C-alpha cells in the first residue's frame, strides 16, 4: 500500500506499522521501547507522529500503516513533545551528565566511563558508550529538567549469577519483560507496583532463581540502559570486533555473535532473535576461555617436574620419544569438542604416523561427560582432554596431553601442551542432526596455546611424516572435503537448556565447566543445587565500627585505627588493604577521633577494591591500614579561604574547613554534586564555615553548575578570596584550577594518583608539578593546582584499567558474601 511520510511517497507491506515502514524508507523516528523481535508496546512515547485524521499524537510503533495515510514525523511540535517526554523519563534516571554545561570538556578529558557501584551519571555508567538515551538526548537537544529528579534508592542487585541489576537506571521500557515472555514463555520478571512505585521485579519479591529464571540473558541483551548488565562484560563499552560463530558447549550449535576487546573475548550473544541461548552459551564462554589457570605454555617432564619449554623443544622432544611407541600400543583419545578439522588430523596422525588403529573419538553424553578406558596394552597415549581415569594412566609409559586446562592427566603427563579451543580457533563442528556448523576464531588464545591441528601437524612433521604441512584450518577442510557449513541462524525452537537450565551440559572436554565459571555453581542441575560454602577468612586488626550510605554510591565508614587517629592532621590520608590479596588503596581521612581511636573515610565505589571495601559489614576487619600519610595541609590565617569539593571531596574538606576556621580564616565551602540527592554533610560543613554553598549540575538544588561556577561568580563580583582548595575528581580539580588562574588566586588541589607503598619508594604516585616530578605520597597530596599536568595524571590513573575491568568480571562475588545465598525453594 502507498502512503506519504514527510511528503515522501512510500510503500508499506501488509501488516507493517508506520514505524517499520519509515525505517525501511530511511526515515528515522526516535524510539526506545521497540525492538525488532518484540511486538509493539507503546510505552516510551518517543515515536509519536502526526497522522491526518487521527486525534492527538499516535505512536508510530503501534499504528498500522494504511493506504493513503499522511504522516509527519519531524515537525516543531513533535520535536518539542519528544524532548519534553524525554525530559520526564530523565526525571527518574540519573541524567545530570546529559544536561551538564561542561559535558564536552569532560568527554574529551575522560571518554571512558568509570566503574562505579551505583551509577549516578553517564560518566559512571557501564552503558555510556552504547547508550541510546544519550544519542536521543543529543538529537533532541535536551538541556534541562523541569523539576528536581528522583533517585529511587532501590538496592543494587548484584548477588545473582551473571547479571547485575540496577533498578535506579531503569526507564521502564518493558523490553525485558516482553522478551522474557517471548523467549521463555513466562514472566519471570514483570511490572510490579503502580504509579511512582512501578518497577521491574519478580512476583512476591522472589529471587530470579526462585522465580524460574533460566539465565538466558535475553533481558540483558535488550536493555537500552545500564540497568541490566552482563557482569563480566559490562565495563568494556563497545566491542572492537564481533565475529559470528557457533557455540560448542553442546551439540545444539547455537549461532553466536562473539565480541572481543583487545584480544580477549568479552561477551557472547545470540544471533538468532527469536530464541534464547542457554546460560552456558550466553554467559559462560568468556569466563571459561579467560580462566586464570589456562595452560599457556608447553611443558615437558624432566624427572619429577614439568619444565616449561618453547614449542620447538616441546615438539622435538615429544616426537623423539613418541617414535618408540608406534603401532597399536599407542592410543589417541579425543572428543567432539575438537573441530572436524582437528579430528581429521588427529585421526590421520594416529593411522598414518603412529600406525595405530586406536583412534578413539568420544561422543559426550547429555552432560558433556566424555569418558573412556584405554585399550588393553596401551603403552603411550595422546589425550585432548580429561577423558581417562588416573588408574588407566598409571599403566602408561608415555603420555601426551594437549588441553586447555590442567587436569590430573596433564599433571602426570610427559608432555603437557596448551591447546587453543572454541572461540580461539577456526573450524567446523556438527550439530545434533549432523549438519555442519562453522566455528570462527573470535579472539586470541592465551599465552602460547595453539590450535590442535597445528600441534599435531608439527608433531607429525617432526616425526618425519609427509602430508601434514597445513597452515590453516581451511586447508584441512579442503583436503577433508568439509564444506557447506552454515550458521544456524534460523532455528525456530530454543535449545532445551535455554528453557530449562537443569538440562545444561556440565562438562566440556572433561573439565567441569562450573569450576571455571563460578556463577554456574549457584544454578541447579537435575533439580538439585550445587551449593558452595565459601569461607572467607577475615583476619586483621582494623574493625569497621560503623557504616552508612550517605548518598547513592557514597559510603561513610568508621574504622578502629587508634595509632592513625592519634597522629592524623588535616589533608592526610591512609592506605588500606581489605585482605591479604587486596590492592593497596589510598583514602583521604575525612575525620578522626584521637580519644576513641577511630578514623572516618568516605568512599565512592569506583572499582574492584572500593567495591570490596564497600561490601563489608560492620564488625568485619580490614587486614591493613597504614597512615597517616602525606604532608598535612598548610593551615594559616590567609584571610578568606574557599574550599571547592565534589564527590568524596565533600567529606574530605570537613577537617580542613574546621582547621582553617580555627586558624582565624573566613571559610567558604562550596560543594558540588550531579543532583540534589547526591549532596551530604550539609549540617556538618555548615558548622565549620562562614558561608556554605551547594551547587548541582542539573540545577535541582542550589546553584546550577559546578563549584567553580559559584566561585567565579564571587570572584567576578570582586570578592576577595585568598586561597582556594579543591578536592574532587581530577576533572573537577582541573576545571577549578583552570578557571581560578585568570583571577590569580592561589589554588591547591588534592591529587589522587594510584599508590603502592605510600612512603616515597616505588614511584607509582608520580605526578608532574611544574616541570618537576613529585610523589603524591610524600610531597603531596596537595599541590599547586596551576602547575599540575592533568593529562598525565589522568593517563597514569588509568594505567591498569584494562586489568581492572577483567578482574571485575572474574571476581563475581567479590566480597564476603558466600555463594550459597539462595534457600533452594526454587522451582527447578
Amino acid at each position, binding site marked *: 500500500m502507498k502512503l506519504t511520510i514527510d511528503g515522501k511517497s512510500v510503500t508499506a507491506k501488509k501488516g507493517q506499522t508506520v514505524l517499520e515502514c519509515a525505517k525501511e524508507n530511511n526515515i528515522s523516528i526516535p524510539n526506545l521501547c521497540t525492538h525488532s523481535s518484540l511486538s*509493539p508496546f*507503546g*510505552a*516510551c*512515547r518517543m515515536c*509519536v507522529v502526526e497522522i491526518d485524521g487521527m486525534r*492527538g*499524537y*499516535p*505512536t508510530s510503533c*503501534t*499504528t*498500522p500503516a494504511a493506504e493513503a495515510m499522511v504522516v509527519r514525523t519531524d515537525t516543531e511540535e513533535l520535536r518539542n*513533545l519528544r524532548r*519534553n*517526554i524525554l525530559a*520526564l*523519563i530523565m*526525571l*527518574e534516571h540519573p541524567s545530570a551528565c546529559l544536561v551538564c554545561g561542561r559535558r564536552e570538556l569532560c568527554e574529551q578529558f575522560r571518554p571512558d566511563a568509570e566503574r562505579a557501584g551505583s551509577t549516578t551519571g553517564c560518566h559512571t555508567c557501564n552503558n555510556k558508550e552504547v547508550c541510546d538515551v544519550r544519542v536521543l538526548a543529543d538529537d533532541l537537544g535536551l538541556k534541562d529538567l*523541569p*523539576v*528536581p529528579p*528522583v533517585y529511587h534508592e532501590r538496592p543494587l542487585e548484584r548477588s545473582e549469577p551473571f547479571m547485575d541489576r540496577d533498578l535506579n537506571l531503569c*526507564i*521502564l521500557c*518493558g523490553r525485558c519483560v516482553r522478551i522474557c515472555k517471548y523467549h521463555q514463555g513466562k514472566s519471570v520478571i*514483570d*511490572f510490579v*507496583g*503502580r*504509579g*511512582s*512505585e*512501578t518497577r521491574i521485579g519478580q512476583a512476591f519479591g522472589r529471587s530470579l532463581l526462585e522465580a524460574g529464571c533460566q539465565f538466558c540473558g535475553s533481558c540483558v541483551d535488550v536493555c537500552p540502559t545500564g540497568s541490566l548488565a552482563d557482569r563480566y562484560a559490562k565495563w568494556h563499552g563497545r566491542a572492537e570486533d564481533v565475529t559470528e560463530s557457533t557455540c560448542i558447549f553442546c551439540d545444539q550449535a547455537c549461532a553466536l555473535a562473539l565480541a572481543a576487546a583487545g584480544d580477549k573475548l568479552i561477551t557472547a550473544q545470540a544471533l538468532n532473535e527469536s530464541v534464547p541461548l542457554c546460560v552456558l552459551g550466553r554467559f559462560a564462554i568468556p569466563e571459561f576461555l579467560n580462566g586464570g589457570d589456562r595452560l599457556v605454555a608447553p611443558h615437558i617432564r624432566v624427572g619429577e617436574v614439568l619444565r616449561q619449554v618453547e614449542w620447538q623443544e616441546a615438539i622435538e622432544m615429544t616426537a623423539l620419544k613418541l617414535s618408540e611407541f608406534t603401532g597399536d600400543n599407542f592410543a589417541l583419545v579425543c572428543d567432539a569438542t575438537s573441530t572436524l578439522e582437528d579430528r581429521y588430523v588427529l585421526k590421520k596422525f594416529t593411522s598414518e604416523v603412529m600406525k595405530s588403529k586406536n583412534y578413539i573419538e568420544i561422543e559426550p553424553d547429555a552432560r558433556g561427560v566424555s569418558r573412556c578406558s584405554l585399550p588393553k596394552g596401551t603403552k603411550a597415549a595422546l589425550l585432548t582432554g580429561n577423558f581417562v581415569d588416573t588408574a588407566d594412566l598409571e599403566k602408561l609409559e608415555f603420555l601426551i596431553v594437549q588441553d586447555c586446562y590442567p587436569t590430573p592427566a596433564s599433571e602426570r603427563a610427559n608432555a603437557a601442551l596448551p591447546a587453543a579451543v572454541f572461540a580461539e580457533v577456526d573450524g567446523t563442528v556438527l550439530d545434533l542432526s549432523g549438519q555442519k556448523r562453522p566455528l570462527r576464531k573470535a579472539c586470541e588464545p592465551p599465552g602460547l596455546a595453539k590450535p590442535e591441528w597445528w600441534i599435531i601437524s608439527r608433531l607429525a612433521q617432526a616425526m618425519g611424516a609427509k602430508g601434514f604441512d597445513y597452515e590453516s584450518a581451511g586447508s584441512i577442510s579442503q583436503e577433508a572435503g568439509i564444506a557447506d557449513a552454515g550458521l544456524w541462524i534460523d532455528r525456530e525452537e530454543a535449545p532445551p537448556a535455554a528453557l530449562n537450565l537443569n538440562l545444561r551440559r556440565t562438562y566440556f572436554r572433561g573439565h567441569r565447566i562450573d569450576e571455571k565459571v563460578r556463577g554456574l555453581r549457584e544454578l541447579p542441575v537435575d533439580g538439585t543445587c550445587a551449593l558452595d560454602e565459601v569461607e572467607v577468612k577475615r583476619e586483621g586488626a582494623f574493625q569497621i565500627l560503623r557504616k552508612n550510605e550517605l548518598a547513592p554510591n557514597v559510603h561513610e565508614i568508621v574504622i578502629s585505627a587508634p595509632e592513625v587517629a592519634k597522629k592524623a592532621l588535616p589533608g592526610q590520608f591512609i592506605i588500606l588493604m581489605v585482605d591479604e590479596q587486596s590492592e593497596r588503596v589510598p583514602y583521604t581521612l575525612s575525620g578522626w577521633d584521637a580519644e576513641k581511636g577511630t578514623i572516618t573515610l568516605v568512599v565512592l565505589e569506583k572499582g574492584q577494591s572500593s567495591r570490596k571495601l564497600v561490601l563489608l559489614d560492620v564488625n568485619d576487619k580490614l587486614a591493613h591500614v597504614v597512615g597517616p600519610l602525606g604532608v598535612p595541609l598548610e593551615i594559616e590565617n590567609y584571610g578568606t579561604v574557599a574550599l571547592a569539593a565534589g564527590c568524596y571531596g565533600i567529606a574530605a574538606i570537613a577537617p580542613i574547613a574546621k582547621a582553617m576556621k580555627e586558624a582565624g580564616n573566613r571559610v567558604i565551602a562550596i560543594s558540588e554534586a550531579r543532583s540534589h540527592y547526591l549532596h551530604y554533610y550539609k549540617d556538618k560543613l555548615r558548622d565549620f564555615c562562614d558561608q556554605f554553598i551547594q551547587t548541582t549540575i542539573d540545577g535541582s538544588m542550589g546553584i546550577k553548575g559546578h563549584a567553580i561556577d559559584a566561585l567565579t561568580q564571587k570572584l567576578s563580583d570582586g570578592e576577595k578570596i585568598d586561597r582556594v582548595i579543591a578536592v574532587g575528581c581530577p576533572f573537577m580539580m582541573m576545571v577549578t584550577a583552570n578557571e581560578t588562574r585568570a583571577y590569580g588566586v592561589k589554588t591547591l588541589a588534592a591529587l589522587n594518583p594510584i599508590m603502592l607503598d605510600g612512603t616515597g619508594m616505588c614511584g607509582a604516585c608520580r605526578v608532574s608539578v611544574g616541570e618537576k616530578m613529585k610523589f603524591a605520597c610524600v610531597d603531596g597530596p596537595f599541590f599547586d593546582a596551576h602547575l599540575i599536568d592533568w593529562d598525565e595524571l589522568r593517563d597514569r590513573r588509568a594505567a591498569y584499567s584494562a586489568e581492572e575491568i577483567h578482574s571485575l568480571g572474574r571476581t563475581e562475588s567479590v566480597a564476603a558474601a558466600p555463594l550459597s545465598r539462595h534457600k533452594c525453594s526454587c522451582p527447578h
Partner: protein
Amino acid sequence: MTSSLQQIFAEAKTKWRRLQESEIPVFFVGAATCGRAAGAAEVLQSLRGHIKAKKVKARVIEVGCLGPCSFEPLVIVHKSGAPRVCYANIGPDEIIHILENYVLGDDPCTKWALGTMTPGQLDGIKDFNEHPMMRRQVRNILRNCGLIDPENVHHYLAREGYRGFLKALEIGPDETLEQVKSAGLRGRGGAGFPTWRKWQFCRDAAGKTKYLICNADEGDPGAFMNRSLIEGDPHAVLEGMLIAAFTLGVSQGYIYCRAEYPLAIHRLETALSQMRELGLLGENIQGSGFSFDLTIKKGAGAFVCGEETALIASIEGRRGMPQPRPPFPAVSGLFEKPTVIQNVETLGNLPLILRNGAGWYTQYGSDSSKGTKTFALAGKIERTGLVEVPLGTTLATIIEQIGGGVPDGKALKAVQTGGPSGGCIPAEKMDLPVDYEALAEAGCIMGSGGMIVLDEDSCMVDIARYFLSFTQAESCGKCSPCRVGTRAMLSILERIAAGEGQMADLEKLEQIARTVKDGSLCGLGQTAPNPVLTTLRYFRDEYVEHIEKGRCPAFVCSAMISYHIDRDRCSGCGACARVCPVEAISGEKKKPHVISQEICIRCGACLGACPSRFAAVYRRSGELIRYEQRKNSRKQQKNKDQLT
C-alpha cells in the same frame, strides 16, 4: 415470550398489586450502601427487633437508593388506607416512634416526613415529587431504585421488567440497532460516544466470537451512580446487557465490577441466578435461538482498570496496563475478539428505549445529547444525593434548585465534574447546560456523572492537588508522561500549597500538563492534567495569591495557615489547651493563652474547641485573618432539634 414466562409476568403483577394494597403495614427501608453508611443497618435492626418483640404484624423490605442521600436513612412507610409516606433522617429510635405513633396510631409524624409517595392526602405532608429536590428531576433510569426490593425479581417483572428485551427479540437485532441509533444514546461512561456506532463497528468486525462487557468499575472518587443503580435495580442493567448482546450477536458477557462494591456484586449474583431460573439466561433464551451467559469478574483495586484495554487485560488475568489503540476493542478486544464495553448506565437506558421507543426517549435531552443522566451530587451542597435530569439541564437548576444551593450562606465557587479526568466550572458559568458539547467547550468533561460542588472555603490549588495525587497513585506506570508527569506536576502543586511556589512554576505546570496530555498512552494520563488546566484557566488568581501573597484565601493549605489566640477575646478557660494534641497552647487559668508556632501542627482542634461566645482562636494566612470555622453538620443539628 414463552407461556411460562407469561404466567410469571402475571404472577408478578399480582404480587406487586397485593403489595401496593397490603393490609398489613410495610416498611421500605433504604438500605443500599449509602443508606447503610447513614445508619440504615441500625434502623433495620431496631425495627425488626421491635416487630418481633411486640409481635407486630408488619413487613420490612430493604430497598435501594431513592435519591435524596442527605436525608438518609430513608424509610417509606405503607399503612393500609393511606398514601405511602417517605420519612427522612430516621434513626433506630425515630423508626420505633413512627411505628408506635403513626403505623399503630394516628400521628403521621409530619416533622420527619419528606413527602407522600402515592396518591392521597395527608395533612401537613406534601407530595414527594413536589419536593424541591425531586421536582426538576426526571427519574427514568432510576425509576425502580428505592421503590422495589432489588432481590425480588417479581418486583422488576411487575414494573415492565424484561419487556424491552422481549421487544428486541421481536423486532430483531437490526431494528433494535436502529432504535438505539434514533434514540441518540451516547455512552454514559464519560466519552459520550454514540452507542449505536460502537455496536456497528463490532457487528462489522470479522469473526463469530464476540464479547460484551459491562464496565462496573466506577473508579472516580465521589461517584456512586453505577453502584446505586446496581444495588437498587440490578435487573435493569442485566436486561440492558441482554438487549445489547442480542443486537451484537454475542453469546458471552462479563460484568467487571470493582471489588469495593460487595453489595452490588451480591445483588448481581442474586439477579443472575434469578435470570437463569426464569430462562432469561443460557442456551436458546425463550426459544429465540439467542444464547447468552454472563460471568461476574471482580476488580482488584485499580482505577486504571476502568480503562477499556486495561479492563480487558484484567479479565484475561494479566496486569491491568492499557494498550495503545488502534486496534480498538470493538475490532480486537477480549481474547483478541471484537468486544463492546458499555457503562452500567448506558445499559440501564436500553430497556427504556426498547420498551417505550426512540421517540419517547428523544423527548428528553438537548439536540446533541438525548435522554437523561444520573449525577452524584456531593460536596458543599445543601442536599446531596443521586439525581437524574434530562441532558441539557443547566448547572444552576441542578445546584440551586435540586441541590438547594450552597449551605451556610457561603458563596458558590465552582462545580467539579468528571472526577479526576474532569475540570472545574466556575460559578459564573452556572447557566451552562449540562451536555457533552457544552461542557467540552468549557474545558471540562461530563465524565460518568460525578458532580462536586465547591464553595468559597474550597481551595482550587488544593482541589487540583487532591485529584493529581489520586491519578499519580493510580497511574499504571507504563508510560512516562503519566507516571512521571503527574508526579512532577504534583510536586509543583505541593510546593505551591506549602508556600514555596514561584511564578515560573505556573508556566512549568502548564508545560508539563501539555506534555502529559499529548504524550500519554491512555485516557487516565491524557485527562489527568485536566483539574490543573481548568483551575489554572478559571482560578489563576488563586494560584498567584498562594505564590505572590503567600496565603491561601480559602484557608485550606495548612502550611500557609497559622493559628493564634486573640488576647482581647481569650478568657483563659483552657478549652483549647485541653484538646491540643501536641500541647502547643500554654497560659495560666483565666489569663489569655498563647499558641506556640513552633509546636503547633495546624490541626484546628483549638478552633473547634473555643466556645463561640469567646471565638478567640483565629487563623492567619498571609495577611488574611479568619475567626470563624465551618458549623457542625446540618443534619446532626436537625436531628437534635427534631427529637426534643
